[in-house]
């Protein structure tokens, strides 16, 4: 039973961290252009940008 006292706070912390990450990504605009994000990976970078 004493394991619960450790495990439950850890579980909640991890969950909260995930929620925090979600809020951060939302406010930093990562969900603003989902279609763009999907295709941007296909863009060839310029030669000088690679280095």
């Amino acid at each position: 039973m004493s394991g619960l006292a450790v495990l439950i706070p850890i579980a909640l912390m991890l969950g909260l961290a995930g929620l925090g990450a979600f809020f951060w990504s939302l406010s930093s605009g990562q969900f603003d252009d989902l279609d763009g994000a999907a295709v941007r990976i296909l863009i060839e970078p310029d030669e000088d940008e690679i280095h």
Partner: protein
Amino acid sequence: MTTALDHSEFLIPGMRCAGCIAKIEGGLQKAPGVSRARVNLTTKRLSVDHDAGMEPADIKALLDRLGFSAELSVNAGAVADRSESRNLLKALGVAGFAAMNIMLLSVSVWSGAEGATRQMFHWLSALIAMPTVAYAGRPFFRSAWTALRRARTNMDVPISIGILIATALSLYETIIGGPHAYFDGAVSLIFFLLAGRYLDSAMRDRARDGAANLLRQTVQGGMVQGADGAVTWRAANEIDPGMLLSVGMGERFAADGRVEQGTSAVDRSLVTGETALDAVSSGDPVLAGTLNVEGPLMIRVTAAGPDTTIAEMARLMETAGQGRSHYVRVADRAARLYAPAVHSLAAMSFIGWMLAGAGWHQALLIAVAVLIITCPCALGLAVPVAQVVAAGSLMRRGILIKDGSALERLAEVDTVRFDKTGTLTLGRMVFEGALSLNPEEAAIALGLAQASRHPLAHAVAQMLQERNVQPVVLTGVKECPGLGVEGAWQGKTARLGKPDWVASQLPGSAGAATAFGIEREGAHVLAFRDALRPDAAHAVGRLAAAGMEVAILSGDREQAVRSVASALGVPAVAELSPADKVARIEQLRGEGKRVLMVGDGLNDGPALAAGNVSMAPASASDVGQTAADLLFLGDSLAPVPIALMAARRTMRVVRQNFVLAIGYNILAVPLAILGLVTPLVAAVAMSTSSILVVANALRLRTCAR
């Protein structure tokens, strides 16, 4: 560097792939004066940080050179609109987090946690649930409160009451150490419902972005000549009547006015829908938004800003669209019946158990169980999920839906009205007949055609390029406004333009014909026609087979309309003004018909807004795109019947979902009233009915056939 930075936003409807993004961002970032360019593909927007000295018109010209037509976006209104979706997504994230954690604790309780452990788990659940309900439940509380204040009821009223009572009662249970807490039920209810809300809102956003403010930006501004002769660029709202406006070839007029100097031809298709060009010279009126095709003009502004014909059209559209906002969506109609039933059922169980001698605590517990079980969880998901899946399927067929309710309205349609120019026809000139030019003549003609910006010259160039003709280089090429282009090749003058100008023996231009001729050699007439869309007849046939009553409403001339109407075998009315079209549609609606309007031009805008539902090709004018509920890509007209069938299938699935959700309740409610529903049963019932509804909606993945 301390140059002042300016920020401009553009709408670029034409971009749709990674190549476009790379081309636009790369091309702009290389340009001097631009410090940052970022594309948003979802909203088709481009935001640019640039030096203050740079005009938006310069950036537009840059984009033109890159091959994209852009419209300056005056205000960032659409950004504010998106915040609704964003808030829902935040609430959804919180509710998801809470639901998972509470479920984790609840499962332990259900599997037999006792005494102090159960007590601790209940308290932990309360700790998570209370802030979650307060935060994530706000969309429902707000909407329920708005409804209640107006003495109405909607789906959100039973939801809010259910969530609040369940939370309060569970807190009470936790305090007195009771065995049942419904925190998991309350929170997962919020989660499921928010998912439906978010899908609905995201779907609306996708299409609404920038649509509302497009109208004002058809022309951003023009070159105004001051008293001292200096020409400066002024935004459209800074142009006043009496000013002298210089309009180059291929530019649109920024205001209504009269020609002061120069001769040219004007493409009025934006306003009238007519494809033929109108010749204008000194004293003739021109309208804002129309295109100056053949030569530079100086015009004296007679009306600007809100007084222009195009602005008048916008107002007409707004009033025509107001009738539609009264449409009650199917989910709300269901809620009108459902909400009172749920309320009275819960109240009756409470009273019944009180009369039967149970304590108020037990009676309330049962009433809450009834509320949670009947809560329209599946109903809240039934409509949005079906619509989102159908929208995805239609999207793959090149049909974009701007509003979730569009599918509902489309499914009820029994009358279809088509515009002609640009809708039944392609809206661009297609060569007709066999090419009578020999290879040498064709090469010269292409050389001339490429030197002109006239739409017919474009059509000639395109037609010749499709036949793999290589252009020759001519000397002394000059464009004669209103007539055509001429140039010299091997000492002879070659002309491409109006038939009677190219060779006097040819007839004057009737319809869209151009001619090519070389001095002292023969001349040839090249006939062009605004061709029907490839499968217009098939699409119209399919609509008629589906029981639709089809007809054409056109602003074009009688003769042009009649040929299209007879080719398709449908009745037509020609020479209608935009207001006439609206009147015709409103008359039909008055007779109880449900009208689908398919159109594209500015002149169709009000009619599109007046129809119960409207479709436009993606090549439509901005106004057409703004006013339409659905857009379709490509040259084919097949998407119109496809969308109609898909809408009917979607509504069938929505109705099935209602039956499933309500049927489920009919089974579960007696158990709840009898007091047999524990939090575990409630959670299982809620999840399975939601899964069932979602699974049924997924059948719509192939609805657009």
